[in-house]
């Protein structure tokens, strides 16, 4: 029986319970992940991190949440009141909605019904997530605009440009997955990975998705929308109390959401690691939930690792990287993937497929060689501007020496 039929047989109350479960899981995961992030970052920076509230500081984020909720709620006089209130709600709603199509377990027994821990399965599930994500950006942009202040506006505008350009790269990285799985439903994509994870067979797509998901969630090193060194707090500068807490919640649910999507699309979803398939039947199938969250935590750890390691990118470098590197690379990769797919569907021999692969690699290497030499030439040419000789001794500039060596 297909998972779609299985989910279709859920009674109404079970769907409601599952909806509640998804909400509770997201909120709990947020509370845990905030503490974990602070602990991991402090470990990386050789500090202790939160250690006062609860054992090992484990309920610090709960205490912070209560504190945030009890703070004074300020709406600036220059703000557009309605939009100002709606913006955080949009942000939060959108990121919770994207969780509806993520399958978190295999077939399990939930209150006497055979079902999956997944709210619903759509034939276009992954596209649905993209749609909801693009709706969620409105939260940030509107928050920036409605605050009636300069820094939030700049943050909101940055965010809109950022998410639009990285969403293109993200959508393109998903195309290869759609081509190979022949479906856009999350469950069918997981089923298509039973031999090899797409993270291995479609490695370039995986890398592009992983980069663009960091850009999409406004996290370091791509957190230009709230760059605290330049824009105070970015789009949420004017927010306080519960409304600010909602943005906070949205950010973390969003991170968990994109990590869950990455798990589903590239790491085999709730399935066990290769060779450990027998564990999937433990606890009546509920053990798959542990596998799912183990993989999601891996992505979350990488998010924290990036934040602890990399400085924030400059805005123009960031846009250049998105448009001039990620998008062209994904387009070329899609062409290669679809050619390979067509070859294997038409039963081309291994020699043909292999020689195509070798040809592609050769072409790419040659192109890279040309680009590299063109770049070197440009650097030398650029630095040959008019330079007045100063009256005091200065060391020779490095490019001058390179020029002499060249010729």
């Amino acid at each position, binding site marked *: 029986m297909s998972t779609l039929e299985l989910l279709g047989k859920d009674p109404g109350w079970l769907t409601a319970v599952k909806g509640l479960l998804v909400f509770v899981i997201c909120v709990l995961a947020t509370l845990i992940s905030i503490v974990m992030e602070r602990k991991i970052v402090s470990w990386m920076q050789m500090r202790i991190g939160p250690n006062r509230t609860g054992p090992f500081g484990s309920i610090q984020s709960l205490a912070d949440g209560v504190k945030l909720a009890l703070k004074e709620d300020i709406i600036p006089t220059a703000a557009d009141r309605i939009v100002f209130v709606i913006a955080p709600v949009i942000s939060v709603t959108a990121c919770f909605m994207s969780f509806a199509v993520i399958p978190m377990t295999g077939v399990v027994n939930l209150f006497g019904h055979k079902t999956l821990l997944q709210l619903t399965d*759509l034939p276009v599930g992954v*596209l*649905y997530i993209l*749609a909801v994500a693009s709706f969620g950006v409105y939260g940030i942009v509107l928050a920036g605009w409605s605050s009636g202040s300069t820094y939030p506006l700049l943050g909101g505008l940055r965010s809109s440009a950022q998410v639009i350009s990285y969403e293109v790269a993200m959508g393109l990285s998903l195309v290869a997955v759609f081509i190979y799985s022949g479906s856009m439903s999350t469950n069918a994509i997981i089923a298509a990975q039973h031999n090899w994870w797409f993270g291995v067979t479609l490695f370039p797509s995986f890398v592009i998705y992983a980069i663009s998901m960091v850009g999409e969630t406004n996290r370091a090193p791509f957190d230009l929308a709230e760059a605290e060194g330049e824009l105070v707090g970015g789009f949420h500068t004017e927010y306080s109390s519960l409304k600010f807490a909602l943005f906070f919640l949205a950010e973390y649910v969003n991170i968990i959401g994109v990590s869950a999507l990455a798990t589903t699309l590239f790491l085999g979803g709730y399935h066990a690691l290769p060779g450990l398939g027998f564990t999937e039947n433990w606890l009546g199938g509920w053990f798959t939930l542990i596998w799912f969250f183990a993989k999601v935590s891996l992505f979350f750890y990488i998010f924290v690792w990036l934040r602890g390691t990399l400085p924030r990118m400059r805005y123009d470098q960031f846009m250049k990287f998105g448009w001039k590197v990620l998008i062209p690379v994904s387009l070329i990769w899609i062409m290669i993937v679809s050619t390979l797919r067509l070859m294997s569907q038409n039963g081309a021999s291994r020699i043909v497929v292999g020689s195509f692969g070798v040809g592609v690699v050769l072409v790419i290497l040659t192109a890279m060689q040309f680009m590299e030499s063109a770049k070197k030439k440009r650097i030398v040419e650029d630095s040959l501007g008019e330079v007045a000789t100063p009256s005091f001794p200065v060391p020779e500039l490095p490019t001058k020496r390179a020029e002499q060596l060249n010729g």
Partner: protein
Amino acid sequence: MLNLALQMGATKTPEAVLFWIMAPVAVIAALGMLFAKKAVHSALLLAWVMITLAFFYIAEGALFLGIVQVVVYTGAVMMLFLFILMLVGVDSSDSLVETIKGQRATAIVAAIGLGGLLLSLVGRATVGAQAIGVETANVKGNVQGLAEELFTKYVWAFEVVSALLITAALGAMVLAHSQNTKSRTAQRDQSIARFRKSSLAEAAGLPAPGVFARHNAVDVPALLPDGSAAAASISGTLKSRGDMLESAIFELEVKEVEED
């Protein structure tokens, strides 16, 4: 008309409930879009109308179309939003004064013409045409069915439209692009230039505004070691506006130091 109403009454209950809740919302949002004073509010209501339309598509069984509607139109309205910010300004409202002579009359004529054109086209496609029903259309799957139509029967129209869109995008880029006669100085060039001046005073960057210990506002010049004000520490904008304060009044009083 009566026939249409009867047909509507015959739809399944959940769909009818959805329709009678969402349709008024969509109509109210559309009217709000026309009558909202702020252009940004209009853009937001437009986004809402598009999302309610997506709900209807999904309820009618066109899942893919509904989702794509959200993906495409949220991006499109976002662009509209940015254009409003760039062209109209952050919070200026619509002015109802006619600035171009005869604009209102021309606009009305053009609107009627466009409406007539749309009506005739949509009418030609729907009136008298035999609908095969969504079940038949979705036999091979909604996405697959749509893809087959798009890439076989309508491939020419599809390609023409995409060529048109690409031309428009390229045209906009060409019109908006300006070529610099000199290459812009990058961070690296500026850094080199700082060390190639006759004085190294500014090599480490300009002094920050404010006087140490008594005042650190952006409009108060910093003091140099000899006690004179450093004009270079104030931003050029403030200087040209004349918004510069005298820093001498914020200096530490020497008397207190002597008492110690």
